[in-house]
C-alpha cells in the first residue's frame, strides 16, 4: 500500500504538531511576576493543572504542553469557567527552567464592544521561585532581535508559508504558489489591503523567541466577511534548530455559528529569499 493513501484526517497547520508533553506532571511552581500578581501552577496530572493568580482560590484547568527545547515549555489552558461564554480566556506560560524565568500571556475574548471576537493579549514577565536559588533580576523581554528575519515554515506535507518579520509591531504573511496555503488560509486576504498583521516579539534566550501574532487588523477590516475571526497565535521559535511549536486561541465561523478555534501546531523552517515586491510592499494599515 502506498501510505500516501492512508486515511488520515485533514490537517492544516496542525499536522506537524509535536505530541503533548506530560513531564511537568507532579511539579509545582510559584512564579514571582513583575505586575505583583504572582502565579501558582500545580500540575496535578498528565493534562490537569491547578492554577492561582494573586493568591486567588486555585482552579483546575486542562492544559497543553509543548517543548521548545529540553528545558523550555509552552504551557497553556483555557479558563474553564469562561468556556461556553462570550468572554473566553486563555492563560499561556513559557516556563524556562534553565534560566528560572517565566513569560505569561493572558488572552481574552469579549472585551471590545465593537469587535466582540477580537483577542486582547496582556503580557507579563517573572522569575520562578526555586529552593536554594535567589530570585534573578533578569527577565525574558520584548525585543527587536527578530526584525529582518524571514522564514519559510512547513506546516504539513503540502502547506508552506513565508513569514517576514519586518518591523517591531507587524509581520507580513505570504506563501509560494505551489503551497496549499491559498486554499487553507487564503480567503481573508482576497479582501485585505495588505498581508500585514499585529505582532509582538519576546526574547526567551539566545536563539529562542516567543512570536505572538493576533489577527486584529483582519478582524477590524473584515468583521465577519470571512469565517476566520480574530485568532491569537503564539509560536515558541527555536532558531538553533529552525522549528517552532505553538497554539491558537480565537474564533471561527462554521455553518453560520462562531465557535472556538483552538489547536496546537508546529512547523519546520528554512531560510528564505523573498522577492523584491514582497519586501517593499506598502503596509496599508499604517499612516
Amino acid at each position, binding site marked *: 500500500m502506498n*501510505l500516501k493513501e492512508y486515511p488520515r484526517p485533514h490537517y492544516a497547520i496542525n499536522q506537524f504538531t509535536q505530541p503533548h508533553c506530560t513531564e511537568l506532571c507532579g511539579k509545582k511552581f510559584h512564579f514571582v511576576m513583575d505586575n505583583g500578581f504572582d502565579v501558582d501552577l500545580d500540575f496535578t496530572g498528565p493534562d490537569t493543572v491547578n492554577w492561582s493568580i494573586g493568591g486567588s482560590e486555585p482552579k483546575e484547568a486542562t492544559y497543553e504542553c509543548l517543548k521548545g527545547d529540553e528545558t523550555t515549555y509552552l504551557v497553556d489552558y483555557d479558563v474553564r469557567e469562561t468556556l461556553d461564554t462570550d468572554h473566553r480566556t486563555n492563560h499561556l506560560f513559557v516556563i524556562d527552567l534553565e534560566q528560572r524565568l517565566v513569560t505569561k500571556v493572558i488572552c481574552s475574548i469579549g472585551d471590545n464592544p465593537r469587535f466582540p471576537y477580537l483577542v486582547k493579549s496582556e503580557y507579563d514577565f517573572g522569575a520562578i521561585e526555586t529552593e536554594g536559588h535567589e530570585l534573578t533580576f533578569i527577565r525574558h523581554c520584548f525585543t527587536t532581535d527578530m526584525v529582518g528575519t524571514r522564514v519559510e515554515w512547513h506546516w504539513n506535507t503540502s502547506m508552506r508559508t513565508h513569514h517576514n518579520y519586518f518591523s517591531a509591531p507587524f509581520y507580513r504573511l505570504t506563501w509560494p504558489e505551489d503551497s496549499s496555503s491559498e486554499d487553507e488560509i487564503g480567503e481573508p486576504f482576497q479582501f485585505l489591503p495588505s498581508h500585514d498583521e499585529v505582532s509582538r516579539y519576546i526574547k526567551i534566550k539566545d536563539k529562542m523567541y516567543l512570536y505572538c501574532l493576533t489577527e486584529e487588523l483582519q478582524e477590524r477590516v473584515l468583521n465577519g466577511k470571512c469565517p476566520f475571526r480574530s485568532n491569537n497565535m503564539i509560536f515558541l521559535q527555536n532558531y538553533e534548530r*529552525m522549528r517552532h511549536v505553538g497554539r491558537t486561541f480565537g474564533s471561527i465561523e462554521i455553518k453560520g455559528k462562531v465557535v472556538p478555534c483552538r489547536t496546537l501546531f508546529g512547523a519546520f523552517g528554512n531560510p528564505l529569499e523573498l522577492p523584491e515586491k514582497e519586501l517593499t510592499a506598502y503596509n496599508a494599515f499604517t499612516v
Partner: protein
Amino acid sequence: MSNMVFDKGGVYISNLANNAEQLGIGQYRFPFNFELAGKDFTIKAEDGEYDISFICGRELEFRGKKYPYECQKLEKTTYFILFSSIAGVVDLGQGYITLIDGDKYISGPVCPCAEGKNAPACAGDDMVGTYVSWILGCGRFMTQEFSAPGKCVVSWSPREGDRDELDCRATKIKGPIYLVDIRGPVRTGVCAPFFTDRVIMLQDYDHMMTVGCVMGKGFDPISVAGYAEFLN
C-alpha cells in the same frame, strides 16, 4: 545572536533564519523527552526476560548495566529511545517495548495492559509503493521508496538522484506507525556521515513525522527527526 546579511536596500539587517549546518542531519531533532524517567519495565521476549529501568531523564539501566540514553516522543504514548548502539520503541499505549541490538530484535509485552493488544509485527507489504522524502534539516533529506517487502531504494541529499536498493526490515508498531530499519552504506558527498551503515526510524504516516537515529562505524549514533514529503 543573529547572523547579519547585506540587504538589497543597502543596509545590514539581522536575520535569525539559518541553515543550521553545524547540526547536520540532526537539525530537526525533537527536544529530548524525559517522561520515561522513573519507570521500570521487564520485556517478556521469546528468548527470555529483559529488565530496563529509566533511572532519570538521561540515564537508564539495561540488563544490569547503566547507559546514557536519548528519548524522542513521536506520539502520545510512543517513544523512540537510543542508548549505546541499541535503538528501540517504547509503546506505553500497547504495552510493548521493541529493542534493536545489532542483528537481534528484542520485543515483548511489558505490562498486563498489553494483553489483547496487537504486538509489533512484520510490516509485510504494508509499505510497498510508498515513496517519501524525510527532511531532517534545511536541505538535508533522505528519500525512501519501499520497492518490495524487505527492500527500500534510498538516496541522500544532495545526491538524491543516486539511488541504491538496500535491505530493509519494517515493523508495524500500531496504526500508521512503523519502525523502519535500513542497512547499507551511503555514497560519498551526501548529508549523512560517510561511514553510515544503518538508519532506524520510527515513522508516523498520519502526522508524517519521524524520529530515529543514524548509525555507522567511527561515530556515535545521531538522533534525527523530521517531516515527510511524498514523492509519487
